[in-house]
């Protein structure tokens, strides 16, 4: 017990680089705030397209997170619990989008889901459905890029969870599905929530895959990051205002979620 206070004091060799890291990460955000044309803020925000882009960003990031939860949590379970051969290869494959440049992801999506793509051409012929340049394409691009964050996070939580609870549930007669639903899932809920938040934040900021695969059309596919990029080419002040809005939304959401749902699991 006598050593406990010492453990929380930062050693000097760590303090300096840590402080530099804080400055490095926070200074650009400060610069954004300093350069924000606060007097024009109202006019810039009321500009046509800003509300539209923000709404589209929030909706598509939320849908992408929902889709990631639906597909990613089961995948995380398979990666963490299954003993099947090729599991390591599988994990490497599904986390490739983490390291892949998003633009490459966008091109790859074209080749599969585009009108001329392997699956896309079939969808077009059979159902008359084309995906590129629609809001669906935005959600798909965001899901492709963001789901691995959720999978990694949930898989980590599953590995760290105490397997004995599941064993006990099984001995008490619970089936594997019931065990997953009633025991495993509540156990790893903080990990799932943290993964969902990471996934949502990544989806909200998605640029490369979206502009490549979904294109850029106000109200349909022009999300906030795309609006910021294009505004920067004509009107830097507008780009700064849009950036500040995106920053505020991200911060507010993270803080809100942390307090409401995530508890100590994420804090």
């Amino acid at each position, binding site marked *: 017990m006598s050593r406990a206070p010492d453990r929380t004091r930062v050693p000097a060799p760590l303090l300096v680089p840590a402080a530099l890291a804080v400055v490095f990460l926070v200074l650009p955000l400060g610069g954004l705030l300093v350069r924000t044309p606060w007097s024009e803020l109202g006019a810039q925000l009321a500009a046509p397209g800003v509300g539209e882009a923000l709404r589209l960003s929030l909706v598509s990031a939320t849908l992408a997170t929902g889709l990631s939860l639906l597909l990613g949590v089961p995948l995380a379970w398979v990666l963490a619990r299954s003993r099947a051969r090729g599991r390591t290869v599988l994990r490497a494959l599904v986390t490739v989008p983490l390291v892949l440049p998003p633009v490459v992801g966008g091109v790859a999506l*074209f080749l599969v889901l585009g009108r001329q793509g392997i699956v896309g051409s079939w969808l077009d012929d059979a159902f008359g459905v084309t995906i590129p*340049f629609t809001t669906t394409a935005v959600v798909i691009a965001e899901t492709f890029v963001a789901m691995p964050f959720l999978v990694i996070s949930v898989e980590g939580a599953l590995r760290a969870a105490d397997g004995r609870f599941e064993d006990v549930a099984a001995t008490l007669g619970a089936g594997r599905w019931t065990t997953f639903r009633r025991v495993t899932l509540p156990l790893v809920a903080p990990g799932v929530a943290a993964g969902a938040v990471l996934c949502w934040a990544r989806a909200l900021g998605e640029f490369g895959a979206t502009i490549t695969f979904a294109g850029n059309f106000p109200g349909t596919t022009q999300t906030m990051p795309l609006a910021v990029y*294009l505004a920067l*080419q004509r009107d*830097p002040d507008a780009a700064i205002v849009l950036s500040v809005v995106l920053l505020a939304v991200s911060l507010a959401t993270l803080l809100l979620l942390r307090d409401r749902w995530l508890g100590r699991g994420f804090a």
Partner: protein
Amino acid sequence: MRRRPAALLVLGLVLSGCGSTVGDAPPGAAEEGPAGPGDPGITGTLTVLAAASLTDVFAVLGEQLEAANPQLEVRFSFAGSSALAAQVLQGAPADVLATADEAQMARVEEAALVEGAVVFAENALMLAVPADNPDGVALPGGGGTPSLAELVPADATMAVCAPEVPCGALSAAVLEAAGLTGAPDTYEDDVRAVLTKVQLGEVDAGLVYVSDVRSAGDSVLAFGFREGIAARNSFPIGVLEDAPNAAAGQAFVDLVRSEEGRQALADAGFLPPR
């Protein structure tokens, strides 16, 4: 391109419609400029920021300048002109800026970062469709140059440049003249992105420069149209005030404006300045 007489015909139509003959020697074009081969003293690194549509032709001219000046290394950054202008305004270290319209160069001129930029080429828009022409876009009967509205099918998926970039400003003007402002399905951030989406067959049609059609070869079909011939973008080039290698920058500008440069631009589908 040569195996597609129809496309070539349309291309010729546009070019002749512009009232200038491509490849005409401009009077007094000097062969012996300061950029002449073997000119001593041009060494180091030359950095050129140029509009995306200049990618192919400037790469060729850059190699020529390097061949004539073995001590020189030419580096290019090709992007949307608006992005390039923004980079210069933010202090990007470069020697030469070439943009796809005068508005973007004017932004840099206003900040006193370039002086005396000159127009070295012009470009007009054409309608590009995938090589297999799935919608059967065709010239309407009756001859003459059609309107864009006669070429684009009503339900076609169409890509154009975003209005923030030069080819998009031109596209917006052309679409308005043709009464098609509602037609685009995506606004791409530069003209090469529009071309790519046509080549991939992901859109039915896209508005691209004549020079992009040339560079795309057989992978797209292209049609000229009235509104495109009436509206053209001027491409200005200038040595930046803060150029680290102004001598090399001037040599490149002179090469672009020389007879050799004009010929290379004409071969790439650009039109001479009016």
